[in-house]
C-alpha cells in the first residue's frame, strides 16, 4: 500500500517533470521494449496537440509494426493497404484540402511495395506529410530483409548477410524524393538520444507548419532501431544504429525551402 501511495504522490500534477500528451490514448503500445516507434508517436501526438490540430488532422496508418497506430493517437484515421498510404492520403487531402493529412510508414511499406505510390505522391507535390520510419528490417513479419537493410546485415531472409550482388543495394528513398520538384521539405532524423528526439520534434513541427503553405510534400525519415529484429538489447541496438545505420543514412536536412530558394535565385542570376 505504501508503494501505491508513493506512486500517487509522484504522479501528482505538480510533481510531474514529464507528462503524457492528452492525445495519446490509454491503449497499451504494441511495440517491443526499446523500439523507436513509441517515441515518434509521442512526438506526433504532442505536435498535433500543441498546434491545436486534433480536429483538423487525418492520419493514414500503414501495414507493418505500426499497423495499429490508429489505436494510439486520438485523431481520425484510415488504415491503408501495404504501401498504399500516399495514394490514400492523396485523395483525402484533395477532397478535404483544409485538413492536415499525414502518412506514417515503415521501410518495407514505403520503400519496397509502396515505391510507386511514394514517388508519385511526392512528384505530384501532394500537400501531405510523409513520416518514414527506417529500421532496415521487416519487424512485424519477423525480421526479414528490407529495401533499406545494410550491405552485409543479417536478417531472417539474408541469414548470411545482405549480398548486394544478388539482393540489391539499400534504397535511399529520402535522397530520391529530395530530387523531385514536388517535395518542399525533406529531412532525416533519429530518436535514439534526447537531443535527437528534440531535433526530430522540431522537424515534425516545421513540416506541420509548412504543409499549411500548400507548397508541396513534406518528407521526414526517422532512422530507427529494431532490437528484436536485430537480435540486440535496446542499448546495443542504439549503439549499432549509430555506428552502422547513421554513416549510411546521415542525419540532417536534405531539402529545405530556404536552400531551394537560394538555388532558384542563383539560377536566375546565372541566367541574367
Amino acid at each position, binding site marked *: 500500500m505504501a508503494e501505491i501511495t508513493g506512486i500517487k504522490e509522484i504522479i501528482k500534477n505538480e510533481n510531474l517533470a514529464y507528462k503524457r500528451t492528452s492525445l495519446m490514448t490509454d491503449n497499451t503500445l504494441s511495440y517491443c521494449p526499446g523500439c523507436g516507434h513509441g517515441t515518434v508517436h509521442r512526438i506526433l501526438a504532442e505536435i498535433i496537440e500543441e498546434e491545436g490540430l486534433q480536429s483538423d488532422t487525418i492520419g493514414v496508418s500503414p501495414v507493418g509494426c505500426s499497423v495499429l497506430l490508429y489505436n494510439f493517437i486520438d485523431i*481520425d484515421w484510415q*488504415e491503408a493497404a501495404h504501401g498504399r498510404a500516399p495514394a490514400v492520403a492523396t*485523395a483525402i487531402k484533395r*477532397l*478535404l484540402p483544409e485538413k492536415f493529412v499525414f502518412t506514417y510508414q515503415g521501410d518495407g511499406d514505403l520503400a519496397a511495395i509502396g515505391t*510507386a505510390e511514394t514517388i508519385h505522391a511526392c512528384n505530384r507535390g501532394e500537400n501531405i506529410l510523409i513520416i518514414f520510419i527506417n529500421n532496415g528490417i521487416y519487424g512485424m513479419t519477423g525480421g526479414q530483409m528490407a529495401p533499406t537493410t545494410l550491405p552485409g546485415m543479417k536478417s531472417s531472409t539474408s541469414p548470411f548477410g545482405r549480398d548486394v550482388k544478388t539482393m540489391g543495394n539499400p534504397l535511399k528513398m529520402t535522397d530520391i524524393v529530395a530530387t523531385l520538384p514536388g517535395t518542399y521539405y525533406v529531412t532525416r532524423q533519429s530518436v535514439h538520444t534526447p537531443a535527437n528526439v528534440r531535433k526530430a520534434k522540431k522537424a515534425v513541427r516545421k513540416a506541420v507548419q509548412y504543409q499549411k503553405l500548400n507548397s508541396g510534400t513534406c518528407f521526414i525519415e526517422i532512422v530507427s532501431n529494431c532490437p528484436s529484429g536485430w537480435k540486440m538489447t535496446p542499448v546495443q541496438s542504439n549503439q549499432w544504429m549509430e555506428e552502422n545505420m547513421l554513416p549510411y543514412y546521415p542525419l540532417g536536412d536534405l531539402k529545405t525551402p530556404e536552400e531551394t530558394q537560394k538555388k532558384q535565385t542563383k539560377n536566375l542570376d546565372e541566367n541574367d
Partner: protein
Amino acid sequence: MEKELRLMKGNEAVAEAAIRAGTDGYFGYPITPQSEILEYLMDARPFDRTGMIVLQAESEVAAINMVYGGAGCGKKVMTSSSSPGISLKQEGISYIAGAELPCLIVNVARGGPGLGTIQPAQSDYFQAVKGGGHGDYHLIVLAPASVQEMADFVELGFELAFKYRNPVMILSDGAIGQMMEKVWLGPQKERSKSVPEWAVTGKSPNRERNIITSLDLDPNAQEEFVRKLVAKYKKIRETEVRYEEFQCEDAEYLFVAYGTSARVCQKSVQLAREKGIKAGLLRPITLFPFPSDRIKEIARRVKGILSVEMSAGQMVEDVRLAVCGQVTVKHFGRMGGIIPTPDEVVENLKSEILGG
C-alpha cells in the same frame, strides 16, 4: 435544368453522368477500351463546374486506393478501368468491402485472360459477382445493356453503394463503352454537403474518433464482422434484384443473357419466333444479386434454357444453380472479343436444346 438529349459513347455517358450526379472524385488510369472516361472528365473540366476532383493516378492500384481514401471521407468517389486493370484493383476493392465503404467501380470489360484483347468480352463475370479479391465479400453488380443505362447506373450505383455501405460495380464491356447511342442525361445535381457519421473528416470534440479499417486480429470479432456482411448481402438479395423480360409470357425456350449478349438475344428471340420457335429473353440487370428466383419460376414452364455470354461459360453456373435441374440448361458463348450473331444463337438453341 431539364433533361438533355445527347448522342454519346457509353464511356462518355458514364463520365458526363458522373459529373451530373454530383460525384466528388474520380481516380483513374488509362486502359483500352475505357480511356474516354478519363479523357472526357479532363476535357469537361468538372473541377470548374462542380469542384469535382479528377486525378490520373500512377497505376490502377493507386487509383483504387485513392478511391478508398476518398470513400473513407464519406465522399462520392469512383474509378473505372478494363479487365486487366480491374484485376490490379482487386486488393483495394477487398479493403473497401472490408471497411464497408461506398464507391463506384466501372469495368468496361475486354477479352482475357492476361493481356488478352481490347475487344469486348463478358469473361469477368466470376470476378465481378463472386468477390474478385480475397475474403468473404460481394460487390453489387449492375450490367448495362445500352448507353442510356451506362449513364443511369452511375446514379443508381452511388445510391446503392451508400444505402448498403458497399462497393458497386458497373460491369459493362467494350461494345457498350465504345458505341454511340442517344442518351437522356439528368440535370446537374449539387455535390452533397452531408457528412456520414462514420466518415473520417478530423475528430471534432463532440464525437469519438472515426477509424476506417478492415483489420480485426480477434478471430471472434472478425467472424462476427463477416456474419454482419453476410446479413447485409442477404438483405441485398431480398431487396435489390433487377431484371428485364422480353416475350417471356408464352415462351417455351428461354435465353438468359446480360449486357451486349442480351441485345443480341433480343434479335434472336425475334428470329426464332419467325421460325416458329417460341423463345423469350430474361436479362439480368443486377448480376449480384442474381435474379435466381425469377429464373427458377420460368424454368418450371419452359422446355429449355440457353445462357448466352461472351465467355466460355460463367453466368451459366448461376443459371444452373437457380434452375436446380428442373430443365436442360446449356451455354453458348463466343470468346476472344467476338460478339455472337443473332443467327448463330438461334442455331445453337436449335442444335443444343431442340435437338437439331
